[in-house]
């Protein structure tokens, strides 16, 4: 049974993810703007956007049903719940007792399912094709993600995120070569799950290039704020998973103020570095044709398959 201090720290970790996630989006947008020789908006711009959207009225089509109105809330609650299982600066989360990494993926799938329903619900043509693309992508991404997680769970003995992070904190990539393959696969999957560039372009509003944005085209006001915020949280959760599973150096393993502070600062440094490198990668590549995207996902699957082979060596 976790102590009261641990529970407080666990809640602080989850709130940290929720509060910090728009900043990550800002950092990525700023990096992309700088690589395109633009000044770019401030890194805090996503916060201003969210505040402005919350104050605005939202317009809802009279043809839409309750699915359209409730799906932003389901999205936010599902992804916000997933944030409680992610260790950030303490190597275990006290809520890890009730759910493991499979639950986190399940919550993501729930959020995605309701976003797809909402895209279909208003029967706009863009929502429809956005949903069908998203269905295709998620159908291909999920087996890849599960294979990758199998590699990690086999290596560290268990699918509990806290257990994985504790085990990986005193291990290294060099000791487990299968994790390099898992890391490659995970990186590709994260680009796909967050709709980053070889998969979809999240920053334009050109309808043909977007996957996720096409489904939420009808939202405005508070609902749009919730949707954008929850996709920012999802992105930060995935980034912190990749960091805390593969490079968890400096994460605090016990409750003490200096260790927690260094853990927090190191985490912010590492996640910003990862976000900046993803943004650089995005400005280097062009968007792939939709039917070539399975090539990328096949690479992720093949990579994690070799990871499994290396584990049983």
């Amino acid at each position, binding site marked *: 049974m976790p102590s009261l201090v641990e529970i407080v720290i666990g809640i602080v970790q989850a709130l940290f993810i929720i509060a910090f996630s728009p900043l990550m989006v800002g950092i990525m947008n700023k990096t992309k703007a700088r690589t395109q020789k633009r000044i770019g908006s401030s890194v805090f711009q996503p916060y201003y956007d969210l505040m402005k959207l919350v104050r605005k009225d939202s317009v809802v089509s009279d043809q839409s049903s309750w699915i359209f109105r409730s799906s932003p809330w389901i999205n936010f609650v599902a992804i916000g719940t997933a944030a409680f299982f992610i260790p950030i600066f303490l190597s275990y989360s006290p809520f890890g007792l009730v759910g493991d990494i499979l639950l986190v993926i399940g919550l993501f799938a729930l959020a995605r399912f309701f976003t797809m329903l909402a895209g279909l619900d208003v029967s706009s043509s863009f929502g429809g094709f956005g949903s069908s693309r998203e269905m295709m992508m998620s159908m291909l991404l999920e087996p890849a993600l599960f294979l990758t997680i199998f590699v990690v769970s086999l290596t560290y003995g268990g699918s509990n995120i806290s257990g994985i992070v504790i085990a990986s904190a005193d291990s290294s990539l*060099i000791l487990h070569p299968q994790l*390099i393959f898992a890391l490659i696969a995970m990186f590709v999957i994260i680009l796909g799950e967050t709709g980053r560039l070889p998969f979809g372009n999240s920053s334009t509003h050109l309808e043909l290039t977007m996957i996720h944005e096409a489904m939420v085209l009808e939202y405005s006001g508070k609902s749009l704020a919730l949707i954008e915020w929850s996709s920012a949280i999802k992105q930060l959760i995935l980034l912190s998973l990749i960091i805390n599973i593969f490079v968890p150096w400096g994460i605090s393993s016990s409750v003490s103020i200096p260790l927690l502070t260094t853990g927090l600062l190191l985490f912010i440094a590492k996640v910003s570095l990862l976000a900046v490198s993803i943004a650089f990668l995005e400005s280097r590549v062009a968007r792939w044709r939709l039917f070539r995207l399975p*090539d990328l996902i096949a690479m992720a699957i093949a990579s994690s398959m*070799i990871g499994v082979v290396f584990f049983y060596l």
Partner: protein
Amino acid sequence: MIIMDTNQIMIFSGAILLIATFGIVTRRGFADWLGAYRYQSIVLAAITALIAYVIGVWEIYVAAGLTLVIKSIIIPKVLLYVTRNLEIEFKVETNPYVSLRASVIISAFLVALSYFLTQQIPFKSDPIVSTYLPISIALFLIGLFVIVNRRSALNQVVGLLIIENGLFLFTLTLTHGVSLIIEMGIFADILVGIVISSILLLRISRTFDSLDVGKLQNLRDD
């Protein structure tokens, strides 16, 4: 602090070599896979130097240096120079027999197969053999698959080069370094082989107006 021994570094380098090989398999364009082949050769040279360090024979260091110079600098340069006049549509593999995504998965299965095969052979417990032998056989199988799969004769050269790298690793692993004169002979052989195959490619492209090996069996009446 985590202590790493040479055994773990060897397994790690083997993993990196496999990743570099997959980098070649996934490329369609000629210049793309040539770049990936360059990376693979650099990794191979590093592995050769590592084996030389473990065994302690100075001749293998020379072989590592030769690998670095010949395979990562000279062979790509020669290939680029010889094919500079070929048209661009000959250089990109647009329509392989098995699609790219399936070939990546098949290559992963080939890696698993080579591990399965080498575990049937009883070896004395030698870390070099047990680490690199399956990888060299995997390289061999992947190279064969690439040759069978690609239509363009120019892009079949890449399979040849992967097989050659696999064979180099195979010899090095099993013999722990053959004498230097044989290594030199092999390297000279590769260079001549590349030059001959590029001349052959030029002749094919001039005669058939295509590098598609599927069209070679068509009869012509001139």
